């Protein structure tokens, strides 16, 4: 209470607007739902999309802040990095809303709590990507996680959904405890909670005994849990599989992107300690990639396969984080090191966007082909003959699978190329080679889906749901994936520039 309290709230309002729009919009959607009586709930989806559009517009209209500007007395960053993630999060939430509504309409049974919860989850993700204070980091993680716990468990009457939500809640609470303990230790060392002070304290005492490495390790455990890093991945298959497909898409893309954004800020914050953890992090990254890919090989359900694939992709992204961390060690000059770090950071941002596009596309296809929420289009065998039944949807899913496998000319290939390129430049050639081998391994299970769709005749139980909105969205996403695969240059430059402008 003694520090300078922000009285400049009015001046910060335009930059805070995206967050405020989502928060107030979420509350408004709750109220509208409460007062809608027993009627249909399709106006809620419209309202939710409007709120998300409003947040995007507010973000677009927000004035460009000078480098180093923070909001609310150092709680949130107002940099290009947070703007980048805000727009990504809003896009992800909009796609999720479209998929969810299309599934609700097919059932004729609306799940009204989905809409405010999605808005609150998106708010948490945006705050997480912008957090520049230990307290706002924790609050953002909790805002996001609480909403997602309920989203996962909210499919009433489905035992698997409840089980998934319960597992995620229990394990997530553990992860939060780890995070809180780590943040408390950091605070104990630094005597302040904002990143700038913590950074200064860490620089002043790089070998401050056991406390800082321990704190850093605890924070890494918590963020590793959110991004599904081995050995904190145990929840991933069950939760991704048990949650409804539209929520799984949100978790695999939005939660992961936000957690990686926070991780990028945190590793930037703690360079000397992160260095102490480097060998362990490298081993865990290799394990994450390998485990995800090996176990995905033998999956028969598409959602479960995508869950393991999401573990593997967390591994590729962690490779990028390792490249960011390693630049301080080998590179000849500081300028060179900064260039490599920007390249690696830009590669991570690029990959997160590409991953969001292709993964949301894949989950969108699942949502599109599901007959109802009880019968989700999960079994891979059910995709047999899809190329004849639904040539368009099959083509989009093929694009997403090619992209996930990293085959040109899709964006997945370019994203992996940038990551591996940065890893090589950072002097970690063996890790890059291992990443490429893993990528080859993963081609088997992604291409299997395409083989089933195009070369197997339909027999037995096949997926034949349909939704125009979901199919249209998947088409747009497939186009974007191809577009970013053919002309990635300017977008990559934007991503690298965004990362360079990141403040902490």
């Amino acid at each position, binding site marked *: *209470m003694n520090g300078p*309290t922000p*009285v400049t*709230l009015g001046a910060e309002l335009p930059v805070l607007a995206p967050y405020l729009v989502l928060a107030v919009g979420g509350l408004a959607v709750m109220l509208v*739902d*409460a*007062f809608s009586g027993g009627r249909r709930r399709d106006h809620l989806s419209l309202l939710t999309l409007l709120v998300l559009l409003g947040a995007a517009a507010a973000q677009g209209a927000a004035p460009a802040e000078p480098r180093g500007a923070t909001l609310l007395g150092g709680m949130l960053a107002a940099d290009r990095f947070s703007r980048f993630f805000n727009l990504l999060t809003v896009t992800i939430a909009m796609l999720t809303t479209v998929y969810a509504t299309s599934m609700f309409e097919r059932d004729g049974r609306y799940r009204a709590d989905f809409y405010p919860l999605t808005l609150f989850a998106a708010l948490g993700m945006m705050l997480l990507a912008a957090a520049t204070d230990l307290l706002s980091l924790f609050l953002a993680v909790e805002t996001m996680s609480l909403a997602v716990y309920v989203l996962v468990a909210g499919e009433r009457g489905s035992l698997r959904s409840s089980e998934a939500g319960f597992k995620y809640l229990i394990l997530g609470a553990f992860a939060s405890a780890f995070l809180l303990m780590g943040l408390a230790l950091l605070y104990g060392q630094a005597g302040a909670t904002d990143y700038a002070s913590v950074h200064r304290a860490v620089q002043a005492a790089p070998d401050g005994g056991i406390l800082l490495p321990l704190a850093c390790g605890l924070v890494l455990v918590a963020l590793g849990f959110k991004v599904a890093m081995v050995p904190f991945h145990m929840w991933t298959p069950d939760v991704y599989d048990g949650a409804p497909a539209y929520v799984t898409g949100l978790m695999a893309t939005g939660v992961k992107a936000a957690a990686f954004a926070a991780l990028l800020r945190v590793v930037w914050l703690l360079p000397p300690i992160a260095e102490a953890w480097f060998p362990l992090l490298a081993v865990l990254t290799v394990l994450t990639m390998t485990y995800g890919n090996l176990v995905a090989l033998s999956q028969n359900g598409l959602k479960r396969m995508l869950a393991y694939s999401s573990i593997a992709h967390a591994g590729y992204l962690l490779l990028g984080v390792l490249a960011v961390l390693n630049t301080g060690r080998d590179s000849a000059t500081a300028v060179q090191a900064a260039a490599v770090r920007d390249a690696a950071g830009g590669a991570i941002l690029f990959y997160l966007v590409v991953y969001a596009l292709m993964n949301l596309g894949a989950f969108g296809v699942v949502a599109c082909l599901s007959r109802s929420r009880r019968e989700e289009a999960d079994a891979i065998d059910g995709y047999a003959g899809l190329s004849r039944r639904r040539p368009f949807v099959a083509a989009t899913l093929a694009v997403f699978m090619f992209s996930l496998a990293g085959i040109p000319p899709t964006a997945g290939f370019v994203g992996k190329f940038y990551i591996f390129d940065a890893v090589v430049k950072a002097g970690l050639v063996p890790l890059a080679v291992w990443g490429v081998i893993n990528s080859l391994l993963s081609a088997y299970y992604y291409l299997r889906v395409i083989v089933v769709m195009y070369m197997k005749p339909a027999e037995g139980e096949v997926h034949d749901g349909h939704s125009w909105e979901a199919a249209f969205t998947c088409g747009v996403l497939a186009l974007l994936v191809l577009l970013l695969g053919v002309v990635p240059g300017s977008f990559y430059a934007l991503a690298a520039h965004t990362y360079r402008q990141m403040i902490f």
Partner: protein
Amino acid sequence: MSAQAIPILMVVGTAALLSLLFLGLSGWLGPYRPNSLKSTTYECGVPARSTVQIRFFVRFFLVALLFLLFDLETVFLYPWAILFRSMVAEGRAAFALGEMGAFVAVLVVGFVYVWKKGGLEWQ
């Protein structure tokens, strides 16, 4: 670090030693003549009639949760009320009021939601 821990370790050690000593002494010196009444579970009041692992009506859980929410609100209000005077003295009255107003407004929205959704009805 380790030098500071020695007194704590001594306290822990002494406590462990003493309690073990008393337990051992009473076991060694005390008479041991059990009967059926003595070996029943010790309880005050009415004897237990059934096991305690019964099913609770799930609505209790909802009520407990709502109680917790509104209880926490007052927990937040207290420190704010104490600080309010000093904040007014610093000329930040509007900020203090606005902050608590936003908090209570969010809570009221939740309250209205619970009310309209029938969370407060017992049936």
